[in-house]
């Protein structure tokens, strides 16, 4: 099959600018990405065209799956020790607190991450980017938040990588995060970005969140207090999961032994 003709970046930029202009005109603050965001071509046939239906959460939806020490080995939080040698790239720590919309910690809950290596290459067999696979880096981690909602991973700073959305399209460096809250309704998968990435303005996935303040919530901060002497740089990224309205029980609000 011949390669499809890809739009130049300028066309995609113009589409994104038009959407931004219309958003600013409308004056209604959005906090989530638009599922219908044509500059991200893969979304065209994969977004609902009808409005979401309002649902009052019922019993099962007011609870979340429960994970524990059985599920996650503490070593899974360190993506740099999964092989025999040290992975290539900038060793870094990312840490932060997971809370609900009221600021209450999401305790003892699962956080999963996956990412490209320092050269922007995923281990995934469908990744065709001709950058080196690092035999010492898989790029998958898991941890449970602690009793105050904190997570912490040690990893390698991922590189940016090209994709085929349009001509010369590059994703800003990011780490994929998957979170469960205290309720089913809080389930979120997202991507964490790094401060000052020059690719932000050009990326239709990042810009599918049309509100700049909302986009900024996906950008970690460099934190020198997280950086460790002669070992790793440090980033801080806090996560807020909304969709909560169950009155929490004592088990949720106390740091119980579970």
């Amino acid at each position, binding site marked *: 099959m011949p390669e499809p003709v890809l739009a130049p970046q300028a066309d995609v930029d113009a589409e994104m600018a038009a959407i931004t202009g219309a958003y600013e005109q409308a004056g209604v603050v959005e*906090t*989530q990405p638009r*599922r219908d965001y044509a500059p*991200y071509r*893969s*979304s*065209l*046939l*994969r*977004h*609902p*065209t*009808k409005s*979401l*239906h*309002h*649902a009052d*959460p*019922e*019993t*099962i*939806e007011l*609870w*979340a*799956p*429960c994970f*524990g*020490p*059985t*599920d996650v080995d503490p070593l899974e939080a360190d993506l740099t020790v999964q092989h025999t040698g040290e992975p290539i790239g900038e060793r870094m720590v990312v840490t932060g607190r997971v*809370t609900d*919309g*009221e*600021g209450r910690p999401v305790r003892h809950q*699962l956080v999963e991450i*996956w990412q490209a290596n320092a050269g922007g290459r*995923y281990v*995934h067999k469908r990744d065709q980017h001709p950058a080196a696979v690092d035999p010492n880096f*898989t*790029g998958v981690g*898991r941890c449970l938040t602690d009793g105050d909602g904190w997570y912490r991973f040690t990893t390698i700073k991922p590189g940016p990588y090209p994709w085929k959305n349009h001509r010369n399209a590059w994703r800003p460096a990011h780490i*994929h995060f*998957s979170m469960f809250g205290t309720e*089913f*309704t809080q389930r*979120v*998968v*997202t*991507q964490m970005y790094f401060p000052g990435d020059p690719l932000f303005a050009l990326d239709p*996935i990042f810009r599918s969140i049309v509100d700049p303040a*909302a*986009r900024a*919530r*996906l950008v970690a901060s460099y934190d020198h207090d997280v950086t460790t002497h002669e070992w790793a740089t440090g980033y801080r990224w*806090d996560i*807020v*999961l*909304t*969709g909560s*309205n169950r009155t929490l029980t004592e088990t949720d609000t106390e740091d119980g032994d579970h």
Partner: protein
Amino acid sequence: MTTPSAPLAPTPGQTVGPFFHYALPYPGDRDLVPQGSPGSVRLHGTVHDGAGAPVPDALVEIWQAGPDGRVVQEHGSLRRDGFTFTGFGRASTTRAGHYDFSTLLPGPTDPGAAPFFAVTVFARGLLHRLFTRAYLPADAPGASAEALAADRLLASVEESRRTTLVATTDAPTPASAASGVLGLRFDIHLQGGSETVFLAYPGH
């Protein structure tokens, strides 16, 4: 600790992307109970895009009550021991866009309630996860036409779209007759004429 009076703004979602397969799936992810075990059911279906094409890079999760209708809070979803029912499962779609779970029938969480699986959908091209429900059809054990008719959510959905929220019972096959495993089918349409009813909860 002080609780802020104004709710905090949510962390936005992003697409799960194309490269989640080596990270999110895990051994036993789709088997809430071992396949073919007594009393087990198969919950399965195809995820379709707006052109009707199967979506081969979607991820479907379910979260459900046990057969007694109680919410389960057991560890072990990521390391199945073959004995503990945790109520959570995860299944990536095949190249044909198909997902499959081996599980138990959820019971009614309240007397007279219509039992359902809570479902979350992720996919490349889908910028933010989608929630829906897969109700047990009236002919499934523990379900009834009366309970479905009395369900508040179903009643609030226009009739022509209501069926998108209800699983259907598979016709018996020699294999299902031999195993006794009931098949429930729940197709998911991200877009189009048969678009699934997706849900927004308060606080979203």
